C-alpha cells in the first residue's frame, strides 16, 4: 500500500470544503433537508468520488463503473454535491434541490439524475441493493466494486443485518460498506435511543472484515479504502468515526441539526466558517 500523496490530500481537502459549502447553500435555498448527516459524510463521499471510485461522469451507465449507494438517503445533499462537482450534472442545478420538477429529489431517486445508483431514503435498504449489484458483478465476471454508506442509527434496521449475513454468506469481496459513526440519530444519541453497539464486534461476528478510521481524515480513509480492495473473500466494513454537522460550529454534535435547514443568516455564518476552516 502506498502512502497517499500530500498533494492529493490537499486537493481532497479543498474539494471537501467546496462540497460542504454546496451543502449549506443547497439546504438554505431549499429551506428544508438534512445538514447533520450530510456534513458528517463529506470526507467519506469526497474520497470516494475524487479518488476511490472508477467512474466516467460522461458515461454514467458505463457497465464497469464502481457503484456507490447512499443507503442513508436523507444525506442526499452530500451525494448531489459530489456528483455535480465531479461533472455528472451542472453545479447550478444543485440549487433546485427539493423543488417541484427537480431531478434532485428530497431523497435520491434512481433514473432521474445521472450518477444516482439506487432509490434510497427508506432506511435499511441500501446494503441489500448493493449486495445484489455485487452478486451480479461476480456473475458477469466484471471487476467493479460496490460501496454502500450506512448511518449508525440506520443500523438498527433488521434488514441491515439480513444483508450483512447474506453478504458474508455469499463471500461478497467486491462489497464494501462504510458506516458513518456520528453517534446521533433523530431522537438523540444512538446509545440512548437504541444502542447498536458494539459495532465492530457485531460486524465481525457477522463475518465481515472490519476497520475503524477517523472519518474526517483523508489519509485514514484512503488507506482504509485501499485495504478494502485487498479483502477478497469477505465483505469489508469501514467504521468511520465522524462528527455530525462537521465543519459548522453551531451544528457539530447537535441533534437538532439533523433535519432542519439553516436560514440565510446562519448559512452565511456557516459558509464563512467553512471558508476559514483548515
Amino acid at each position: 500500500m502506498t502512502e497517499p500523496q500530500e498533494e492529493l490530500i490537499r486537493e481532497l481537502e479543498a474539494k471537501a470544503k467546496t462540497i460542504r459549502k454546496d451543502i449549506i447553500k443547497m439546504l438554505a435555498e431549499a429551506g428544508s433537508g438534512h445538514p447533520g448527516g450530510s456534513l458528517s459524510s463529506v470526507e467519506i463521499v469526497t474520497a470516494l468520488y475524487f479518488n476511490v471510485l472508477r467512474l466516467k461522469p460522461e458515461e454514467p451507465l458505463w457497465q464497469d463503473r464502481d457503484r456507490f449507494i447512499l443507503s442513508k438517503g436523507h444525506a442526499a445533499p452530500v451525494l448531489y454535491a459530489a456528483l455535480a462537482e465531479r461533472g455528472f450534472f451542472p453545479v447550478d442545478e444543485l440549487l433546485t434541490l427539493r423543488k417541484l420538477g427537480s431531478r434532485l429529489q428530497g431523497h435520491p431517486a434512481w433514473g432521474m439524475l445521472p450518477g444516482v445508483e439506487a432509490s434510497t431514503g427508506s432506511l435499511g435498504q441500501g446494503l441489500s441493493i448493493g449486495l445484489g449489484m455485487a452478486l451480479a458483478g461476480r456473475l458477469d465476471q466484471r471487476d467493479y466494486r460496490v460501496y454502500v454508506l450506512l448511518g449508525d442509527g440506520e443500523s438498527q434496521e433488521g434488514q441491515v443485518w439480513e444483508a450483512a449475513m447474506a453478504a458474508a454468506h455469499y463471500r461478497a469481496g467486491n462489497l464494501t460498506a462504510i458506516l458513518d459513526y456520528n453517534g446521533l440519530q433523530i431522537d438523540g444519541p444512538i446509545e440512548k435511543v437504541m444502542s447498536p453497539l458494539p459495532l465492530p464486534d457485531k460486524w465481525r461476528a457477522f463475518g465481515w472484515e472490519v476497520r475503524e478510521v477517523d472519518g474526517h481524515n483523508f489519509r485514514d480513509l484512503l488507506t482504509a479504502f485501499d485495504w478494502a480492495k485487498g479483502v477478497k473473500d469477505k465483505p469489508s466494513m469501514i467504521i468511520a468515526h465522524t462528527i455530525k454537522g462537521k465543519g459548522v460550529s453551531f451544528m457539530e454534535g447537535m441533534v437538532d441539526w439533523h433535519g432542519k435547514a439553516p436560514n440565510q443568516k446562519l448559512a452565511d455564518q456557516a459558509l464563512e466558517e467553512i471558508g476559514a476552516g483548515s
Partner: protein
Amino acid sequence: MLEQKISTRDAYGKVLVELGRRYPELVVLDADLSKSTKTSEFAKHYPERFFDMGIAEQNMMGTAAGLALAGKIPCASTFAVFATGRAYDQIRNAIAYPGLNVKIVASHAGITVGEDGATHQSIEDISLMRTLPNMTVIVPADAVETAQAVTAAVEMRGPCYIRLGRPAVPVILRDDYRFQLGKAAVLKEGKDAVVFAAGIMVHKAFEAASVLEAEGVEVAVVNVSTIKPLDRETIVKWAKKTRAVVTAEEHSIYGGLGSAVAEVLGEEYPVPVIRVGIKDRFGESGSPDELLTAFQLNTDSVVNAIKKAVCEKSRIAC
C-alpha cells in the same frame, strides 16, 4: 373440461427451467421456501444463478433490486403473505418506485393454503400490489396460463407481481390459449350476466355458468388474469352487454379484482356489481375445499351471486 389437475406453482417451477435456458440474465431468489414455491427446479439446473437468501424477505427484495439495477432479470419467490406483507416497503421503495425489472412470483396465495391457517393465507396481496404505481399484477387461472404469464413477465420490462396457489387445480385452458398481458379473455359468451373472475375462481365461474345454463340463464365468463393494467374496455363492453356483473376471486372483496371492476364501472357504466370474495375476515385452518365452501367461494356462491345480479337488473324483488 379436462380432468387434469396441476398447481400453478408447479407450472412456475417448470417454466422457470425453460426460461433459464433462454435467458442467461434470469436469476432466481427464494427465502427458504424453494421446495414449496418450486424454484428448487431452477436451482437444480442453474445453481450459480439461484440465490437462497434465507428467511429474510426484506433483504431478498432489496437484493433483487440490486441485481435488476445491474442488468439481471430477478424472479423473487416466497409465500404471497411474506412476499407482499413482510417486504412491502422494500417492494415499494426499492423496486416499484424506480420501476425496476424485478418479478415477484409468490405462491400459496389465498385460503387454499389450507391447514396452515390465517398467518399463511394471503387475502390482501392483490390489493397491496395493485395500489403501487408501475406495478403489473397477474393472477393466472391455471397451469397453462401460469407458464405463459411468467414468460410474458420475464419478457416485459418493469416490476411485476404474479400470484400463484398451493393446491393442484383443474387445467381449464387449452394449449392453444394465448395469454395477453393487459387483456381479459372472454372464455364463454352469454347475454344475461357476466362473471369477471381470476385465479381458481375462473373454474368456479365456469361451473356456475353451466349450472345456470340448465335454468336458461346465459352467463359470460371473462378471465381477468391481468388485474393491473386492467382491461377496462373488455370490462365495460361486457357490463354493457349484460348489465349484470359478478366478480369472483380468492381474495378480500376489498382492494382486489372486485374493487378494480367496481372502480371502472362506477366511473364508466354503473350497473349492479356483486363481489364474490373473502368478506373482510382472516382465513383459518381447514382443507382447501372445506375452506372454499366455508368462505363462500364455491360454485354455489357464484351461482347465487349471478342470480342476485340478474335479479337486481330486472328489478324483481329478491
